[in-house]
Structures are given as C-alpha cells and as structure tokens.
C-alpha cells in the first residue's frame, strides 16, 4: 500500500470507526458536561485537538528516545555508566507518570502561548484549557502511541514513526470534536422537547449518545474494505487474484 493510503486509513479509523467517544468511551465527561451549546462544544473540541497534537508530539519523542525499552538516549547513558548487567534499559514503568505531567505541562504551555499571541482565540476556548488536563482523550492518545512505539526492530509490529503518531492524534481530536459538536447540536434542539423527568440531563444525553454510537457502528469495516481495494489495485496481477471481490455482508 502506498504511504497516502496508509495515512488515509489511519485517519478514517481514528476519527470515524474507532471514534474516541462512541467506540472507546474516552472523553465522556466533557462530552456530557460541555455539550449544551454548539459554540462551546466547538471550542472544547478545538482545544482538545490542539492540545492532543502537542501532547502526542511530546510523548512520542520522549517515548521513542527515552522511555521505551532500548531507547537510544537511555541506552547511550546506560552504556556510558558501564553497569555490570547487560540487560536492555527499560524505563517504560515511568510512562504513565511522565505522560500525565507532559499533558499538564503542554496544557500550561498552550494556555500561555494562546493568551499572549491570540487573545481572541483565548477568549473563545481559553476557559476549557485547564479542564483538558484531566481529559481522558489526551492520555488515551498518549497510551495508544506508547503501544506502537518500539525503537528496537521487532519489538513492536509495524511501529509508528512521528508522522503516524501525529496523524493519529489530530484525527482522534477531530473525531472527538465531531462527536461533541453533533451532540451539542442535538441537545440544543432537545431543550424544546418534553423529556421524562428521571432522564433529564445526563440520562437523555447518554441515550442519544447510544443512538449516535449505533450510527457510528455503520463505519465499521470501512477501512477493511478500503484496505482491500488499495491492496488489490497496488499488487501485480497474479497476487491480486487471490483476494475476492469485496462483499458487503459483515
């Protein structure tokens, strides 16, 4: 498969098929809490996308060079220290601690930067920034990147380089934004509806989220089919014959 189609598949899979909210359930707190109005939801989604990209860059870099088993920087320091044992240095136990502080730091950084250089933008989504530190989407993306980072060849199947990690992060953020904006649009309409008293608030929001999740299930299998198309168009004739024409039944 060509690079472009790999990227496209990764983007579709992280934004639509494995949508943060509707498939992985991460980011449910802001999804329920900040989805009353479309403009606020949009601000939250944009802020998350922005921070998740910065955090993904930082966490990929730190994981690849320092934290992963056999990371180059750690190995260099380890060799320089000349320890008695020949084991591969592995700092991956520190991953969670490092990620959460990287996220907190990234949020601070982004907040300061935006306040100084884009005051209007700061007014639009600055209030959401401190909340983002405890947003699961960011940590989830960092963890997903950790799973795919392996500086030692063969330690991780199909390891992610920085480009893939960033594409994944941006698309995951956009997927979150899509989910929360759609939800806010529905909830604005919902204010005029007569919702049964016990379901008011979080109850009805979750029920709607369930229906939306059902709709998002429809994307499942899209990447498998696309991958097959890409593969059969890229391979020489003899090999392509081995794949059947695509079928639509799951």
């Amino acid at each position, binding site marked *: 498969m060509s690079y472009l189609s790999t990227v496209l598949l990764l983007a579709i899979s992280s934004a639509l098929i494995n949508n943060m909210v509707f498939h992985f359930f991460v980011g449910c707190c802001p999804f329920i809490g900040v989805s009353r109005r479309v403009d606020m939801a949009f601000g939250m989604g944009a802020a998350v996308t922005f921070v998740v990209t910065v955090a993904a860059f930082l966490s990929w870099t730190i994981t690849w060079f320092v934290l992963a088993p056999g990371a180059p920087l750690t190995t260099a320091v380890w060799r320089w220290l000349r320890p008695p044992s020949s084991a591969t240095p592995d700092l991956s136990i520190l991953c969670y601690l490092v990620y959460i502080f990287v996220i907190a730091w990234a949020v601070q950084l982004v907040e300061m930067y935006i306040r100084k250089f884009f005051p209007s933008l700061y007014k639009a989504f600055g209030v959401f920034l401190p909340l983002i530190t405890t947003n699961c989407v960011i940590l989830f993306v960092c963890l997903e990147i950790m799973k795919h980072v392996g500086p030692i060849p063969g330690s991780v199947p199909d390891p992610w380089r920085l480009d893939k990690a960033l594409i994944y992060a941006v698309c995951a953020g956009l997927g979150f934004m899509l989910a929360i904006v759609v939800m806010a649009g529905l909830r604005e309409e919902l204010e005029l509806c007569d919702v049964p008293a016990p379901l008011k608030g979080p109850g009805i929001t979750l029920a709607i989220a369930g229906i939306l999740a059902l709709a998002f299930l429809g994307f499942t*299998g899209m990447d498998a089919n696309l991958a097959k198309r890409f593969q059969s168009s890229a391979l020489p004739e003899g090999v392509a014959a081995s794949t059947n024409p695509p079928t639509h039944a799951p």
Partner: protein
Amino acid sequence: MKRNPILDAWLVIALSAGFGSSLAAVQAALKPRIEANKLCDTLGQVPVLVTSATRAEKVVVGDRVYYRALDAAGVTVGWVVPASGQGFADKIELLIGLDATASTITGIYVLDQKETPGLGDNITTEAFRRRFLRKPADVPLSVRKDGAAAAHEIEAITGATISSESVVAIVNAALRQFAGQLRSGAIRPGGIP
C-alpha cells in the same frame, strides 16, 4: 517575605524520591513475571501450532520476528509466523504454524481481535481455525462462501465474510513475506535432511 521555591517543594521532591524507589522495586519484582506472561502468549502456542515441536527460537529479520520451532533434539520441525492486519473492526493478530519446509500450514491461532461479538469473533473458534489445516502455504489462499472445493480455498464463516477474508488476507500477506525471506536467504531454512 520571599520564599525559596526549592524549600517550598521539598514535599514534592521527597514524594518523588519515595515513589520512584517504590516503582523501581515493583518493576524489579514483577518484570520477570510480566515478561513470562507476554512470552507465554506466543511461545505457549508453538507446540499446538507445530506438531512435535517442544520449544521455539526467535529469528529477527529487519523489523519482522519469526519463530523457529524445534523438537527435543534441536531439529527444525516448523515455523511460527506472527502476522497482523486490518480486520472488520480492528487489528487482528495471528500466529501461523508451518511445517519444516514452509509449504503447508499446520495451524493458526488468533492472538488478538476485536471483531463483532457473536459473528466476526468466530474466527477464534476451533471450527474456523481447523479450516486452515494442511492448506498449501506457497499458493495464495482464497475465501469461498459456499464450502471450500479446491485445495487453496477456505470456507467463510456465515455472517462474517469480511472477518474471514481479513484473516485469509493477513495469512497470505505474511506467508508471501516469509517465503521471500526464505528465498533471499535471510532466514536459514530448516528441515530438509
């Protein structure tokens, strides 16, 4: 009154030191066990996938990993090829067992999958996996919905055609790559006396 930030943060520094050492202790105590668990996932399957194999040896070529299955006397009796690829819902991870000459499939095992429960996740069943037994490894396999006829055909699971096709595609891709490695001499072949 000006305060010294370092003195101010002494608690944080002391806690970090305490937590750091406790994490190091946990790591030292549990790492062998966790590693064994991870390895058991793959290596535990080797005797099932390759008949008469008792242990396996890791072979790393570039960024790919293969396992050479050995019998008690240390003779190569087969191969275990880890493979992964896109399924219907998410990534599917497989282990494929081959005989010593890498010409016949001796078994497959699904390490990880997130296919639709009740339909696609039937790829993990014995009934489906047995359909790969004694299939040729040098010809690309193909999927049939109405019962396999030819030697290289695999019958799809009813209601899970895409999942079945995904498994077959992953197997084909992995075997093609493995055969290439064998041909190019990157892996020392085994078996033929």
